[in-house]
């Protein structure tokens, strides 16, 4: 799980072009949206593509992203639950 979290951090930074952020800056339990990394709805769509591209997981309804993308840990858990880690 920890390895997956670390891998995800790097992929998120790359996908969202977070040039100022280092993996160590991201607390896996901090919210990705709002206060935490300050991501928005466009980033959510980018993360959906990240899941499809790297993990073969398709999300049809963007509203589902809300729960999955709460934090890096919830994202990792979701990938694990899908059996795609």
């Amino acid at each position, binding site marked *: 799980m920890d390895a997956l979290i670390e891998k995800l951090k790097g992929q998120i930074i790359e996908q969202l072009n977070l040039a100022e952020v280092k993996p160590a800056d991201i607390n896996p339990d901090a919210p990705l949206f709002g206060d935490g990394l300050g991501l*928005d*709805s*466009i980033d959510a*769509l980018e993360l*959906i*593509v990240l899941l499809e591209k790297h993990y073969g997981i398709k999300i049809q309804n*963007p509203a589902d992203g809300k729960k999955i993308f709460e934090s890096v840990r919830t994202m990792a858990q979701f990938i694990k639950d899908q059996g795609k880690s």
Partner: protein
Amino acid sequence: MISAIGNNVQEAYVNLSNAKSGIGKVNYLTTRYKDEYVLGEVKLSNEQLMDLIGDHSPALNRTSLLGIAAAKEALKHSGIDLKDGMRTGLISSTTVAGMCKTELFYGEMVSDGKHLEVLDAHDCGESTEEIADHLGVKDFVTTISTACSSAANAVMLGCRMIKHGMLDRAIVGGVDSLSKFTFNGFNTLMILDKEWCKPFDENRKGLNLGEAGAFIVIESEAALKKRKGKALAKVIGYANSNDAYHQTASSPDGIGATTAIKQALEMSGLSPAQIDYINMHGTGTPNNDQSESKATVNVFGNAIPKFSSTKAYTGHTLAAAAGVEAVISVLSLQNNKIFPNLNFTTPISEFGLVPVTKVTDATINNVLSNSFGFGGNCSSLVLSKV
């Protein structure tokens, strides 16, 4: 006007009156998703469009072809002779422009240096100049691109230039053809409905893209009198404002839309109660219809006029949308008819607003037409009977 519901205004009127949508399975756009989605395509191939306008020049792309077909019809209908010494401008708008062709050749252009002539017709201004040159407009040309409110802004600019005495009349509107570029773009935003869109329905899933060219001819009163012409309608109010909320989404409070509607109404000198019909932007996306409903309630309170979105007929034709809807609004004024909001069953629970769902006869003296776009761009027009 040329759109999914017909190659001219008369055909569109027949389909509108019969509640017959032009949205259907994909016949002309090249995309790997052609069997998964429905689109509002114009029912002619590029070759057939060339036959329609009588020009087979290979330089013409689909955007220009639709624009020329629509603008020619509008000018002919107006009865105006461009050589009568009056100053005439063409104000067009587009978002796709030459991308419909560039996207087919860019790979080969880059790898083999072939088809480089396509570059010359890539930019937005080119399609406007093709239209101007086909009509013979010389006095003024420009092009606006403010996403889905573009054509409303073209109408507004034309009115202002006439008011300022810079032009006697203007051919104003917009054109967008379907392209892989915009189709995939909207697909990445996950706001496309694979089935017919359901504007203002609680269970709406997104929009259907369409394509169209749509123009109206506006003229100063003096010029109209001088040539003893007859107007179809008057533009009596317009406004543009910005939501400044989000790059693509509209604010949940409908701030920009509320401002645009209020300012357009104020300019028209009408009270909200005098609006007989609203042609909504109503794309069918969860976000737009929520925001627009909120703005409508903000302005009209409990006394909401009859309203509908006609996007379920034509698809969302982007830069052309406000041109299409200006034409439809004029048809409503001329025929005292409201064209329905197709595919609606359940009102949005937050507002409970119910659009007109059947072709309805009603006295229509004043119409409000809304158009909102990416980047928070919000425009409203008020049209009235002559």
